[in-house]
């Protein structure tokens, strides 16, 4: 199928690029963009497809990072195992929050996700084993061959995760699960009376979403050789993961990808040329502008102008 050929090509290109002589800065920037692509795609599975807004992306992301740290420190686990464990733990967290609040209206789920950020951050700040509030330095093992540096290797790992995340999102979207989620988003009561097991589907979407966010967080400790709560739980992750799909388009898996590319690039440019506070303000303003004036996102605008509708 066309998609899988494209996906395989992306993986191969990423691998070759990681081994090429491209400027090191490229890998640093691309890592950030790809990371946001995973977060935005993950967010959209629950937020865009089912209509349940998650404000707490940072929590799932950070728990992924901290799970990786615990596994590394306790068992010396390799990166692949760290990522798998991070996905499992954050997935479980998603399942737990979902079980608690997805029966209720969407705003309660959203507020519960804010609660999770606070509670998890407080717990991590008081846990000595992972460094508490001051954080933890990590001694990284030698970078795996054939990669020349951690930046290059983790760039490839994140590219792989991005392909996985987008593939999962695409599968959910085009499968019967996707139609059920759309029915939930359009009218949950009618969906339930049409035989859709709304709670089960929402829990599924929430768990998968959380797991992917956790996976995105796992490479961070290796990337920075360091972990600390303040930056791990940064609000920027939550806002970006929400803004990127809402700006790119929530109906299709391409939306978060476009949104991530667009916003991450803008973020890089603004941070470097103006300041990081203005950058964060720009994201907020763009989010509000799109939500008000272009609710179907960039994809929607594109469709309107190309006249496919």
């Amino acid at each position, binding site marked *: 199928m066309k998609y899988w050929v494209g996906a395989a090509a992306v993986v191969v290109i990423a691998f070759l690029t990681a081994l090429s002589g491209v400027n090191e800065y490229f890998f640093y920037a691309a890592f950030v963009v790809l990371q946001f692509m995973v977060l935005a795609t993950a967010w959209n599975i629950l937020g865009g497809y089912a209509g349940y807004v998650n404000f707490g992306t940072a929590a799932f992301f950070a728990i992924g990072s901290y799970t990786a740290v615990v596994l590394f420190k306790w068992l010396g686990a390799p990166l692949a195992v760290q990522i798998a464990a991070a996905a499992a733990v954050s997935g479980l967290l998603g399942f737990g929050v979902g079980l608690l609040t997805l029966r209720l209206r969407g705003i309660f789920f959203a507020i519960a996700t804010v609660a999770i950020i606070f509670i998890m951050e407080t717990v991590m700040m008081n846990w000595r084993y992972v460094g508490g509030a001051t954080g933890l330095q990590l001694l990284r093992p030698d970078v795996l061959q054939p990669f020349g540096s951690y930046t290059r290797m983790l760039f490839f790992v994140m590219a792989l995760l991005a392909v996985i995340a987008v593939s999962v999102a695409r599968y959910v979207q085009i499968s*019967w699960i996707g*139609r*059920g989620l*759309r*029915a939930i*988003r*359009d*009218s949950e*009561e*009618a*969906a*339930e*009376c*049409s*035989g*859709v*097991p*709304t*709670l089960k589907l929402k829990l599924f979407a929430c768990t998968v979403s959380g797991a992917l966010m956790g996976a995105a967080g796992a490479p961070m400790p290796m990337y920075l050789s360091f972990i600390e709560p303040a930056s791990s739980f940064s609000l920027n992750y939550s806002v970006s993961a929400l803004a990127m799909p809402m700006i790119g388009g929530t*109906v299709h898996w391409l939306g978060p990808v476009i949104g991530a590319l667009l916003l991450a690039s803008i973020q890089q440019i603004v941070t470097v040329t103006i300041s990081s506070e203005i950058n964060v303000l720009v994201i907020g303003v763009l989010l509000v502008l799109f939500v008000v004036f272009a609710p179907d996102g960039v994809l929607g605008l594109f469709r309107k102008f190309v006249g496919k509708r």
Partner: protein
Amino acid sequence: MSAPLLKVQGVSKHFGGFTALSEVSIAIAPGERFGLIGPNGSGKTTLINCISGSLRHDSGSIEFEGREISGLAAYQRTRKGIARSFQIPRPFHSMSVLENLLVPYEYVVHLKQSDAEQQAMEILGRIGLSDKAHAQSSQLSQVELRKLELARAMAAKPRLLISDEAMAGLSGSEVDEVLKILFSLNAEGITIIMIEHIMQAVMRFSQRVICLDAGKIICEGAPAAIVANPDVQRAYLGA
């Protein structure tokens, strides 16, 4: 009657201090055409919500085909054979008319997409919406939306179909159209509960009618008797 298809016994529902239903008991025979009337706010939709599972009743029991369904979620009750339409239409507005029907086909009947599409087109033909099959459901007129509600309930292949004011706002000929469809569904063996304010429709359609007022059943019997009942007339015209 022989074993009833639906048996509602002593069902009550409260919202805070407000009692919406009070000890309501109904038994509906398989294949019956049953009418439910009552003034606005009498609890008709609440009763339907309790039967379909959209709401949990506070006390009493509800049995379908001899089995207690009180513990089942709404989607499970739909899969057992209870389908309903909504008084205020709730289409899946991001989907086309045809896709709207595919949801129950996928989730209740578990058909392959191609078979589902074929059967869905048949239903749309029957109900008069085939030319709108690929239109966005958000662009339908009120009348068409009501027909879509009914079509979607039909797509779930129910044994009990609850039609909640499907004819509100329809013209005389449109009412006849919908009645014809309901009669033909009943002829296929589907038990139908009709909630309506249009008395002539209730009279023509129902074999038995119950009148609800302030959460209680105030009258039960043949259509002509119900309409002539002074309690019923008082309930509608106000004390």
